[in-house]
């Protein structure tokens, strides 16, 4: 396993997209949250912008920002890691040289998992630092009251990453994979949902789509109260519960992994 991670690191340590994407992620994650300092007046029931930065709500706001960054950066990187190997024919050459197809697949899966863990550790660090600076006093239990966000955040990155990986194994072309990734997440899934369910309020199954489940892992905290009100009024929730979104995301992750594994094992390279 370590050998495969080292191999992936060697392959991509000097590639510009990895450096640029991770650089942007490191800068943007805290910076976008700190933009909240500009919003001194917030609509009721929020008293002021301190909810963005204090424990325990800092976890939710930072995770919401991280979800957007994960969508852009992790998905793009996953597509790049796999489809660049098709484009440069280095996948073929790796196999000719002696890497098994299974090892190649494992190296991609593990490397994306490693980057997701690093991104999640950074999220945890940023949340702890920002939360600590904006609290007069707090205990460890206050700090980690919302610790489930750490796991959900990891699932967000794994979900986007393995979706990108799956698309790249299906289409092999970086352009097509990236285009489909962006359009599926942005509106194609919405269009498919609308095409199938034809109603804003339908059966709960309309939420069981992969990108919707990943987005619901870190819901937009500002409108959670309105969502609760809507659920009481119409007996229908706009969101999946935490447990539902985690389970559905994990199921899709497994499906993406199985699908990509079967593709690399069965196809000619």
């Amino acid at each position: 396993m370590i050998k495969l991670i080292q191999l992936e690191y060697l392959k991509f340590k000097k590639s510009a997209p990895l450096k640029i994407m991770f650089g942007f992620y490191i800068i943007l994650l805290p910076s976008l949250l700190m933009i909240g300092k500009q919003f001194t007046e917030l609509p009721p029931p929020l008293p002021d912008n301190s909810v963005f930065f204090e424990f325990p709500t800092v976890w939710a706001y930072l995770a919401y920002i991280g979800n957007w960054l994960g969508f852009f950066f992790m998905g793009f990187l996953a597509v790049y890691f796999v489809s660049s190997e098709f484009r440069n024919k280095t996948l073929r050459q790796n196999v000719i040289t002696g890497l098994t197809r299974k090892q190649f697949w494992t190296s991609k899966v593990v490397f994306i998992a490693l980057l997701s863990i690093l991104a999640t550790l950074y999220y945890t660090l940023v949340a702890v630092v920002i939360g600590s600076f904006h609290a007069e006093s707090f205990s460890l239990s206050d700090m980690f009251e919302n610790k489930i966000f750490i796991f959900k955040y990891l699932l967000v990155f794994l979900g986007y990453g393995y979706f990108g990986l799956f698309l790249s194994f299906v289409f092999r072309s970086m352009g097509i994979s990236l285009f489909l990734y962006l359009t599926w997440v942005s509106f194609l899934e919405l269009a498919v949902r609308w095409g199938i369910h034809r109603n804003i309020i339908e059966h709960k199954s309309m939420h069981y789509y992969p990108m919707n489940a990943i987005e619901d892992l870190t819901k937009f905290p500002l409108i959670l109260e309105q969502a609760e009100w809507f659920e009481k009024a119409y007996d229908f929730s706009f969101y999946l519960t935490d447990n539902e979104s985690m389970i559905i995301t994990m199921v899709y992750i497994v499906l993406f992994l199985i699908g990509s594994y079967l593709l690399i094992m069965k196809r000619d390279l």
Partner: protein
Amino acid sequence: MKALQINKLTKTYGSIKALDQLSLEIEEGNIFGILGPNGSGKTTTLGCILGILHPNSGSYKWFDGKYDPNPRLKIGAILETPNFYPYLNAVDNLEIVRRIKGTANQDFMEILELVNLAERRKSKFMTYSLGMKQRLAIAATMIGDPDVVIFDEPTNGLDPEGIAEVRNTLKKIASTGKTVIMASHILDEVEKICSHVAIIKKGKLLATGTVGSILSDNLTVELASLDKEKLENFLKGIKELDKISLNENIFSIELKEGYDAGNLNKMAFENGINLNHFVIRKKRLEEEFLEITQNS
């Protein structure tokens, strides 16, 4: 020991049969050329035995199963084009190959010097000329001291200087005693480098054996005279001659085994024919190849 045994390998792409029950054996230490016109199935054969294409049926075995389950770790191969990470330099790219092979650390200087790339080892692959890329690919095949090295059209697209450099490198590798398998449609290349050859067309094996056994022992004689008609009538009257052809006023004939070419010259003189061109040569692989592939 047999380096490779291919048994009734078949590969189809839709309705096209790229390989048709192809069987082949390559002994250890052979310098083996796989010859065939474009689209004959050379690269498909190599793709199947290197694990990147799934054959529809048939099987192959490397080294009598000695290095199973992953014999490719003992094989160095390039297929079609040199494939490397364009943003990495030669050393980084070779390091990736070394990691996959799982061999001991090395600085690659010896290998890079062999292919004349030591000075450019820190340049990115994307900045290399085609010849340099091809030479780096040859260097990569040498990592891990493989038992077999495979080259697919190694001089394709190179300029004359590049071709000479690559051929010299191949000869150096062949002289180390390794088994070399080379697919090519350039007959001169195979004739100069290989000890054994297989000729394939439309995915079928047409002939295989040593280069000497593929080449017939019969001599070819080229002759010409100012009196072309008289010469032609004279040649047609000799039953020991075979396959008379005319190209730009020069007759080319094949002598049956045991027939003395000098006798032909003497007989022509005695028949009042003054020859202004008389060349005796062994038949070249190119002619044999064309004959075998055209007759199939």
